């Protein structure tokens, strides 16, 4: 196996599991350390640069970083092992920061003459605007809704995301003064193209809720609602109540928001009914937990068959009972269980069985190619469509995802638009900004806290349901207080403080091998990676998750192999090394933003 090239920015980046998994590559451990140090504003700004909506995301993010977090792999007991509460720590930074407005960029008075249209004012477009406005671009923001924010405003219930938090962070962007065309639906992309913009960004989301066609749908239509339309209507204040008995069909996060909202609008008996098994539901585990804590049962393996009604008044839904069967390849299919159908009575049904893209307003002769699912062909790195002036991002690009993906797309699209408008090739991407610096402060002193906290994950306190179930706008989660935040932050392993090895200094004394609590380090003759993985001091448990760090040949001809997978970044190897062959060096990684050129 060839020696590791640690100059490749991706090498150490991948070691930082959370940051690598974050679509926007937020420098997570850096902000967690700042939270532990009580530097909330600094922690907030690190987030703001990377993910634009720290207060929003600290409450609502899908948190792909957490399943990736190393802490979940190293804690004892597979069942109790839990990642760091990365997302909720982000909220701590937002909640406790001071006024940061003087740290925000400003749009220059002198514009650069380039005009960009942004269709839709959701997180994707807002990110593009934030990245381009400070560079002197003129951004024109269209949205059919009267306020900016997209689904963050219209879909996510206020009891999860208070309006004030959203307003604050949207206003930071509006403060950069994009031209606002709110309350204005774009009905023709051609018309926009004809206005002569230098580039157009389509961030219109995936606005259509999937229908559920079955007997009784038309007759009982008055009490059958499409989930996302209904949530939008609640959000705008048009809908303020629902029947006492509510059935929510579907098992995703939208279904969870529908059922919890129903509980707050008069639904006493709210049930979620899913086709699949409980475990396979799409909703995040914490969303399911929150729903069940509010007294909402989740009934599984029930496939809806018919809406029952009494002369147009909905009376209930009939379900077929199914069971899961697995074929030889382990693929699951749902087959009739043979048990009698189940009839569940209700007053209202919310249909939350999926969300779709729809581009009726995009003419098909603009040079934008569509695939056989009627989705635009978009490059996943540049976000460019087959019309070089037109870019897509967020849910509009590859179907419904989440806010953090919309932000990540927005950043990349902004980079592309900037390259495009300055006559550069959008496919040649600017490299990320990295920095690697020793954390050594004294013989056994580091500028980070290398002690490993043994604590289990802390739970975020909730307001009591008696109170929150009465008010659809009252936030349920209270957030960590400062003390809990410190303890939770201490659980972070500082995976960005890298173990950097300098072969020529090593005398092969084995001290690092002996001290390493996770048995990460091995000295052995070199060989192909597969063989090396067999020879490690401790078994290689996640070869797909992390790489082996390999040195050049040492004095005895052997090599140093470190399995990055379970390293605690405790620095004990560096403390024990008599020659300083190991050093703990902080690796900062920031993706290139618009304005960085190759």
């Amino acid at each position, binding site marked *: 196996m060839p020696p590791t090239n640690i100059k490749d920015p991706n090498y150490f980046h991948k070691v930082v599991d959370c940051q690598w998994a974050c679509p926007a590559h937020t420098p997570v451990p850096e902000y967690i350390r700042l939270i532990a140090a009580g530097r909330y504003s600094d922690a907030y700004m690190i987030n703001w640069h990377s993910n634009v909506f720290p207060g929003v995301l600290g409450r609502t993010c899908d948190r792909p970083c957490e399943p990736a977090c190393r802490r979940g792999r190293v*804690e*004892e007991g597979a069942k109790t092992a839990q990642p760091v509460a990365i997302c909720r720590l982000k909220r701590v930074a937002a909640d406790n920061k001071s006024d940061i407005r003087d740290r925000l960029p400003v749009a220059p008075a002198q514009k650069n003459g380039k005009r960009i249209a942004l269709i839709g004012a959701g997180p994707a477009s807002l990110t593009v605007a934030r990245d381009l406005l400070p560079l002197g671009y003129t951004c024109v923001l269209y949205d059919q809704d009267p306020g900016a924010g997209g689904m963050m405003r219209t879909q996510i219930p206020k009891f999860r995301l208070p309006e004030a938090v959203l307003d604050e962070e949207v206003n930071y962007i509006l403060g950069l003064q994009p031209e606002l065309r709110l309350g204005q639906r774009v009905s023709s992309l051609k018309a926009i193209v004809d206005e002569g913009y230098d580039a157009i960004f389509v961030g219109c989301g995936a606005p259509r809720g999937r229908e559920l066609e079955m007997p009784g749908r038309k007759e009982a239509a008055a009490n059958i609602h499409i989930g996302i339309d209904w949530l939008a209507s609640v959000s705008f204040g048009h809908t303020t109540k629902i029947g006492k008995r509510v059935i929510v069909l579907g098992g995703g996060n939208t279904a969870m928001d529908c059922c919890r909202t129903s509980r707050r609008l008069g639904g006493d008996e709210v049930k979620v009914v899913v086709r699949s098994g409980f475990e396979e539901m799409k909703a995040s585990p914490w969303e399911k937990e929150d729903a069940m804590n509010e007294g909402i049962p989740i009934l599984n393996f029930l496939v809806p068959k018919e809406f029952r009604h009494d002369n147009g008044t909905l009376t209930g839904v009939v379900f077929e009972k199914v069971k899961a069967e697995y074929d030889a390849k382990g693929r699951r299919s749902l087959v009739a269980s043979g048990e009698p159908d189940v009839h569940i009575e209700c007053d209202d049904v919310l249909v939350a069985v999926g969300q779709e893209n729809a581009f009726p307003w995009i003419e098909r002769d603009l040079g934008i190619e569509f695939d056989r699912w009627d989705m635009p062909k978009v490059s996943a790195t540049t976000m460019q469509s087959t019309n070089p002036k037109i870019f897509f991002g967020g849910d509009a690009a590859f179907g419904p995802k989440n806010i953090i993906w919309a932000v990540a797309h927005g950043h990349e699209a902004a980079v592309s638009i900037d390259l495009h408008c300055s006559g550069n090739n959008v496919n040649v991407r600017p490299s990320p900004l990295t920095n690697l610096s020793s954390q050594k402060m004294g013989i056994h002193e580091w500028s980070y806290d290398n002690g490993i906290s043994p604590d289990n994950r802390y739970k975020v306190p909730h307001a009591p349901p008696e109170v929150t179930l009465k008010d659809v706008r009252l936030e349920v989660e209270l957030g960590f207080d400062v003390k809990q935040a410190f303890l939770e932050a201490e659980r972070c392993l500082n995976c960005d403080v890298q173990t950097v090895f300098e072969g020529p200094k090593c005398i092969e004394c*084995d001290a690092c091998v002996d001290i390493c609590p996770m048995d990460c380090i091995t000295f052995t003759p070199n060989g192909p990676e597969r063989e090396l993985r067999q020879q490690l001091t401790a078994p290689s*448990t996640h070869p797909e998750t992390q790489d082996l760090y390999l040195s050049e040949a040492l004095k005895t001809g052997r090599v140093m192999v470190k399995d990055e997978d379970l390293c605690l970044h*405790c620095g004990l190897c560096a403390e024990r090394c008599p020659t300083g062959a190991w050093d703990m060096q902080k690796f900062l990684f920031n993706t290139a933003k618009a304005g960085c050129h190759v």
Partner: protein
Amino acid sequence: MTYLAKPKFHHPALPKNEHGFTHRDYEGSISTLCAGCGHDSISAAIIQACFELNIEPHRLAKLSGIGCSSKTPDYFLGQSHGFNSVHGRMPSVLTGANLANKQLIYLGVSGDGDSASIGLGQFMHCVRRSVNMLYVTENNGVYGLTKGQFSATADRGSTSKAGGTNNDSALDLVGLALQIGATFVARSFSGDKKQLVPLLMAGLSHPGPAFIDVVSPCVAFNNHAGSTKSFEFVRAHNEAVNRLDFMDAREPITVDYEPGTSTEVALHDGSKLRLAKLHGDYDPHNRIAAMNYLQSRAAAGELVTGLIYLDDNPRDMHSMLNTVDVPLNGLGEKELCPGSATLDKINASLR
């Protein structure tokens, strides 16, 4: 040294032994020795050997004297019995403990100063009495704890870190052990765990006086050019006579050697030692030849390592003294005070 306690977290897929322990369960408190000290590697090797031998920690007693080396029992087998004696007196304490309870495994840990200088007499008498133990010296050629004076094992002509030359003859503990009746004699190097761990396992299983001299570089005072106990010097002059694999009685034999290149030695508890010959026809069962070989290689400036001598029929002090099997603390009043009739009998036999 490090200030942090070693985190309790460990690799989730660590192998467990018969008692459900991982090797981490055989650790002690965090070492306070200098970073890179050879002694720490020996501690790690002892941890590994005890883990692999499935030793129940409470069945082992570790005893030591004074010195950096003698401090190390604090850093391994945190759940075993231990005694840290005065300088050079560990062998007597070990002998006494062994007399009182022959059912424990005795591990004596000492240094070249502790055993070859102040404790030389103690070391020799303990070995010649055939106390059942494994005696390990962590040999760095200096008094590490008192800042690096030459010890009695420092080679004549070697230089100290400060530049002084050692004019005295070196004492070879391996040679002495062979002479005075150790029935298991080996030498190894702290930087070679592949060799050291099986030697420790075999030594711990040996039912008689076993001795292993482990060359262990002192990174602070004896790892410079001019030292004969440095990592570089030992690696360059290491002359391994055999490579050995320790095989548990129950384990299937997995190592394959070409015929004629290895010998197998059955041990008393049913386990086996497989010795891969690395050096001609070296025969570890011939004591006189071993002593000659050792001397001739030493004259050539080489350091013989590996299993140097093994007596298949070791003796143990207890068998010669005909002692009781029950540990003294397990004897009741009836056994200890058998009454006046028994006393009369004894007195009569002496008249």
